[in-house]
């Protein structure tokens, strides 16, 4: 029950991230998903690795916040308006939650696998259809988060070292997003990735 609730919170964070037009709101959703994700495990991670992941998440969120503050608060936005994307992600969670016992039996917490699949759907939307650096970077972070959630669902909770590695890879990906965002802003004054008419020649 608790694991299921944590899974719902993670998916809600991913939905906010994928559906938001405002980059600050998207940052909030991403942070929520990253903060709660390590808690979908039975047993819970040891204190030190858990703290490492939470601190890494907060540091990453701060870096994204700085990027948004110093560049532009609005993203290119979801391609289908936001509600459709949110519905897809939520549906993926419900379907995966329903089907996981049939497919995955006793391999790990069902909530983790279902949340992983739902977050992967959100990541796919962001990575494939992103129109700006912020959404692309958020998609990359969610893709790796989805993989680590699926890992918990498929093979049980990670060890302390793996938590350190997961926290590091997520932090480095956020750092890469912030760096890329800075470069994009320096190059053309916004974060968009689509070619401008004058770029096309």
């Amino acid at each position, binding site marked *: 029950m608790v694991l299921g609730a944590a899974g719902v919170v993670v998916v809600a964070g991913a939905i906010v991230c994928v559906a938001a037009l405002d980059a600050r709101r998207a940052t909030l959703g991403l942070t929520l998903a990253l903060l709660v994700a390590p808690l979908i495990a039975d047993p819970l991670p040891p204190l030190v690795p858990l703290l490492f992941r939470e601190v890494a998440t907060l540091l990453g969120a701060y870096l994204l916040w700085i990027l948004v503050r110093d560049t532009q608060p609005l993203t290119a936005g979801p391609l289908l308006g936001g509600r459709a994307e949110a519905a897809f992600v939520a549906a993926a969670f419900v379907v995966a939650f329903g089907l996981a016992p049939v497919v995955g039996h006793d391999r790990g917490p069902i909530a983790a696998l279902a949340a992983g699949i739902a977050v992967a759907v959100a990541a796919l939307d962001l*990575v494939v259809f992103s129109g700006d650096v912020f959404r692309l970077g958020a998609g990359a972070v969610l893709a790796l988060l989805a993989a*680590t959630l699926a890992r918990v669902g498929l093979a049980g909770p990670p*060890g302390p070292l*793996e938590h350190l590695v997961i926290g590091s*890879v997520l932090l*480095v990906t956020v750092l*890469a997003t912030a760096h890329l965002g800075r470069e*994009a802003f320096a190059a053309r004054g916004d974060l968009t990735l689509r070619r401008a008419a004058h770029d096309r020649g």
Partner: protein
Amino acid sequence: MAVGAFVAVAFGASALAFLARPLPRLGAAIGLAGLAVCLVLALLLTDGEGLSIGGERLTATAYLRVFLALGAAVALLLCLLGLATGGQHHVAGVYAAALGAAAAALALPASPSAALAATIGGVGGILVAGAERPDPGSVRVASRYLRAVAAAGALAVVASVWLSGIYGAIPIDPLATGVALVTMALALAIRFGAFPFHAWAARLAETAPQVAVPLLLAWLPAILFAVALAWSHQVVLPQTLELPIERGAIIGLGILTLVLGAVGSWIQDDVDHVVGYSVVQDAGFFLIAFGALDRALWEPARTWLFYFVLAKSALAGWVAAVRAIHGTDRLPELDGWARRSPLLAIGLVAALATGLGVPGLASWDARLAILEGATDGPARWLAFAGWGLGYVAAGRILLVGLRRQGERARAAADQRPHRPPPEPSVSGPLPHLLRLVRLAAATWETNRLPLATGLVLALALLGLVLAVAPGPIPVAAQGGPPLPSAGLAPGP
């Protein structure tokens, strides 16, 4: 403990260099010093020593030692080359981070942790994936790189746990094993830029600083390959499943990449694109070796990995030097480059001999063993044709260099070493030391291009010497990967 020390020094130097970005020279100095310490620590690693954290163990192996030592040495040479040709100050710190990630990934057993550690290095590469002066085009290319690295990392993590259960390995299931194998192969194909995922890799070779290209396209994907190969041999191979369709599809994609990469490399007019497509082409060998699922290919695949990274590093170094000396990377404008820069020509020939292979060299034997072990019939001939086409593309560059010198070659920068201007004489021990430092700095400033040529030559000859006399490489390549941890045991 030494593995832990290596990881700490590598990431520490990288973090300090990153923080020093506003002071580029300081950042470069920190990065170079970090790489030098990493080289020493790598040489001090001994087999079997390690560090345990919560049940998972980082274990040093002979392969890890050779990989890290070569990586640190090549990174030092490339970073100095970058400074000599165009002030690429940020590259050294990123190389250090990549070595830290490599140490963690290769010291761990085949597990999601290893795949994630390999991804850390890949994502960190974004810091040098853009142009020195960012423009919209280079940002787009860097964003494609991030997309590819994240996708490959996520797929590799999922594949590496697909066959593991919370209560141990799941029962043998051909479908599940096949899905896991194809997922891991997909991760490799995306990460190496194999066909049809090649577009970002080819563009990256054009926009990224030249000395960062081997890191992004060769060293970092090679780490993921080493992890994936260890996983396939620890988890998939013991299941003794045939998996003909999955293996055939992966090997087929490898052969296609081998052929089309060679064609792409042949028809390009920019030498940086030629390098990009030559990396794409060689990704074919990795896919073929991975898809073969053959115990006999464990050693050739791991041996080939060393020559691949050495050859691509030398090739990218050659491009950086040619661009700095001749002021262009367009092949039609490089008529007579080899006559004007004979030492660079020797460097290119050595790099090509290491990478493409010449009978008698260890790299040739490794490539031959991979193709002969994994293919037969028409597929083998197609693979050989792809390999052979690589020589055509390389020969084209050399032929252009042997033509009568064109306008660019005649106007090329002076590559002869010069004596720096004399300093006023001073007395006393400290001023004398100061004078030596000034002299070294003045010699560096006056002789950037000759030094760049020498560094390219050193890089290329390092690879060639190791291909002629492999030294520790065969022993390192034979050794098995670290043993798996209890929670992710391979199938019965």
